[in-house]
């Protein structure tokens, strides 16, 4: 009976692995997002700022008002460092995220009809949509309100924001673990969540030096994809992409690739080529590995 149980567990393990392999379809979203990122420099070249007659330069896109508070929902997708229209590039990244998400969902649905297994796409949708909403609503709103209160965008302010985030995470984790109905626990939980929101908003805002916040949203979606697919390879691609996205947003890659930059288009290409390459290479490797395992 015991040996029979071991054999049965082995067989079930093989069935589980086979089902996971057959449901893997993440190569297409990786390639799609990689290509869409690579197309961005063309748009940046065409989206140069033209100063309107009223003198207001469109750097951060349109301003939105909620309860008397003004903020720029597309501000993570653009930067004052590049002479591009905030509205044009903001809408581009918004389009990349939304269209990419819809194509990904349609792809998995179409693939399910062909292969016979459909993964839990709701997990991916939760990550991708959640990431987008966080980056266009609370992050610009909270960071816009508090960035000056926390000391601006210098190194000390960045450390303070990270400290607020860490304290918030620790406080939330400690208070969420307990089961008592103690009032202090609930107060601690609320304070912890508020600190996490403030810390996340400021850290994201500060990590967005070059205005490629769209990469963060795509990264959150790919993490969700890796979780949904239970794929180690997709997980590795997600981690590499997060690293490449941070590099693109924080480091002037044109210093390494082009030397003296000649245009906004060149700067953008130099910064975005690494994250795009990670996704395109990851997609090709996943496609090849999937075909080999089916042969």
């Amino acid at each position, binding site marked *: *009976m*015991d040996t029979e149980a071991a054999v*049965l567990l082995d*067989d079930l393990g093989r069935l*589980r692995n086979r*089902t996971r392999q*057959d449901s893997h379809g993440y190569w297409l979203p990786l390639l799609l997002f990689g290509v869409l990122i690579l197309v961005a420099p063309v748009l940046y070249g065409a989206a140069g700022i033209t100063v309107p007659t009223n003198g207001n330069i469109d750097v951060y896109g349109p301003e939105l008002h909620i309860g008397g508070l003004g903020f720029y929902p597309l501000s993570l997708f653009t930067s004052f460092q590049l002479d591009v229209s905030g509205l044009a590039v903001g809408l581009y990244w918004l389009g990349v995220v939304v269209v990419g998400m819809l194509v990904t969902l349609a792809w998995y649905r179409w693939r*399910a009809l062909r292969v*016979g297994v459909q993964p839990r796409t709701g997990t991916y949708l939760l990550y991708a949509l959640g990431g987008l909403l966080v980056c266009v609503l609370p992050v610009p709103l909270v960071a816009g309100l508090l960035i000056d209160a926390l000391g601006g965008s210098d190194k000390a302010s960045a450390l303070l924001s990270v400290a607020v985030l860490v304290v918030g995470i620790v406080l939330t984790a400690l208070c969420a673990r307990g089961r008592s109905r103690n009032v202090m626990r609930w107060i601690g939980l609320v304070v912890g969540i508020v600190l996490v929101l403030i810390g996340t908003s400021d850290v994201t805002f500060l990590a967005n030096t070059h205005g490629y916040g769209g990469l963060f949203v795509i990264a959150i979606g790919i993490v969700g994809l890796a979780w949904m697919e239970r794929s180690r390879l997709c997980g590795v691609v997600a981690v590499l992409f997060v690293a490449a996205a941070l590099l693109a947003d924080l480091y002037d890659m044109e210093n390494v690739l082009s030397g003296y930059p000649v245009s906004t288009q060149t700067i953008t290409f130099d910064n975005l080529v690494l994250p795009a390459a990670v996704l395109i290479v990851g997609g090709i490797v996943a496609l090849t590995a999937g075909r080999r395992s089916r042969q």
Partner: protein
Amino acid sequence: MSDHPTADLDDVVHQRHRLGILTIAAETKRVEFGYLREALSLTAGNLSRHISVLEEAGLLDVHKGYDGKRPRTWVQINDSGKAALAKEMAALRALVTRQDSPDQTAVD
């Protein structure tokens, strides 16, 4: 009352093919009848009977529909099915662990 792991095995779930159906369904949002038949090397009639047993036990939901003119049957595991599968897997692992620890086996 025996504390032997076999006491936790459920006759409905423990049957090899039914366990296979639940395992595959637990990995997906939904799985198609044809995929299950091919993966488990079963005839359509056999698979249909196993699915009916699991559906009647309230462990699976079955949805019938069309893809164009082609009829399709989709199988989806529900929360009771996930719980039953987890319990069965735990019992099987306990049996294997028992085999690996001779002291405990000797006592019984």
